[in-house]
């Protein structure tokens, strides 16, 4: 497995090539805009390749812990079933991690729905903090910009 340069660094280098050598030769404003958009997409992909598996694994564990705590505290069979249906497997293949993440997200939402319905302030506060963290992680990846030197190498 080739590790240097990393996938993110490769993508950043592609962006550099586009901006430095290709973009100046494009005279059509519409195509310039399209190319600029594509470089933003590539920067986002660079960000995602660095951390998306790690982020989803970390968040999945938090979601399931929250849902399990809600299930235990409320005795809700619906939340318990959602927790039961979700688990974090050993595979780090992206598609497997995404599936785990989706199931954990569903369990979290099932639990959050319940505590919102019953206005359980303690669980609501904890759940809202989890949502803020999810949003912060998403924003860090899909920010539309790329900081120089952010990639692994």
């Amino acid at each position: 497995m080739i590790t240097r340069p990393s996938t993110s660094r490769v993508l950043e280098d592609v962006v550099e090539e586009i901006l430095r050598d290709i973009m100046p030769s494009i005279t059509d404003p519409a195509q310039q805009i399209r190319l600029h958009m594509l470089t933003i997409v590539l920067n986002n992909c660079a960000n995602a390749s660095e951390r998306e598996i790690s982020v989803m694994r970390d968040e999945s564990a938090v979601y399931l812990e929250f849902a399990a705590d809600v299930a235990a505290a409320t005795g809700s069979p619906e939340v318990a079933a959602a927790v039961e249906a979700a688990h974090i497997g050993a595979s780090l293949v992206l598609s497997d991690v995404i599936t785990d993440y989706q199931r954990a997200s569903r369990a979290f939402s099932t639990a959050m729905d319940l505590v919102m319905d019953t206005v359980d302030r303690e669980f609501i506060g904890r759940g809202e903090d989890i949502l803020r963290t999810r949003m912060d992680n998403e924003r860090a990846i899909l920010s539309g910009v790329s900081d120089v030197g952010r990639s692994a190498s």
Partner: protein
Amino acid sequence: MDAERLQSFLNAVEPDRGATVISTAPVPGGYSRDTVMAEVQWADGSTEKLVLRGDPAVESSVFRSDRDAEWAILQAVKDLPDFRIPTPRYFDSTGEYMGCKCIISEAIDSTSMQKFLDTGPDLDKAREDFIAIIASAHNTPLDSIDASIDRPADWRQHLDDIIANYERMLEYIGEDDPILRYTLKKIRMNIPPEVPMTMVHGDLQPGNFLLSEGSDPYIIDWEFARIGDPRLDIGYYLQIPMPPHLYHPDPEIFLARYRELTGLTEEQINPAIARYFLLLGTSHLMLDILRGSEDVAMGEHRGVMGTFLMTAYAHFHRLYLDYALELPYSAEATR
């Protein structure tokens, strides 16, 4: 939508006027429709500029809107005394000539209000003008709008239909988005007071107001227009990122003037309710963005927008969570 197609179309719809298409040039920057500026010379020697607005190919677009519905709206509002629109001239309703459904309107010698704002004008005066234009659309009596334009049976049904955009979003992405689920739940807990329904533009921002020397402003881009709750337009404008913003520096002044011109009460529209309506007024866009994202996930190509708009997805996500977090938990929570 090139010169050859336009020539063929004008030959068909204006056979006695002897049109010659002098030039066509795409207008870049639109997220939704393809736009082309054309210049035409008629047999009497006069020249005219036209704006062509057509549907991009499905494989290179994300946003969906209906040209037939837009044409009907344009026909319904073109002669109203309350506000001006560029005169809609022709409609290739089948795409037979233009290669896609295409609306052709007069081109206005103008500058957009957004460009005017970039020149550093008196922003208090600009805000007054902006609100007056909004109010001119929102004050249009519904009975002056052609009966062929769909109107909801009642306000609550209309609001529920808008709220259902969140259910549609969740259907697209498999119910797995905790932020959208949370936002939807908070929206349902905080149903606002009813207001009279009006004409709603659906993409209300300074970029869609044209300022022309010696005439009242024109309102363009009616593709998302409908009859509904006018606060959808206010909420929509809150998320427009282009500076200078005319609402955020002083929401109270903005809304006080809006209330003064429209007759709504402070209970009906205030900063908190305006923020609530951001969640609803942008939902049609978020729905299209999520549909485009899902199409890409399923292997379909949706042009550069299909992937680029993931940044907009994150932008709206952030706004939705921030605004939904502010909404209180109500007694409806237990229903």
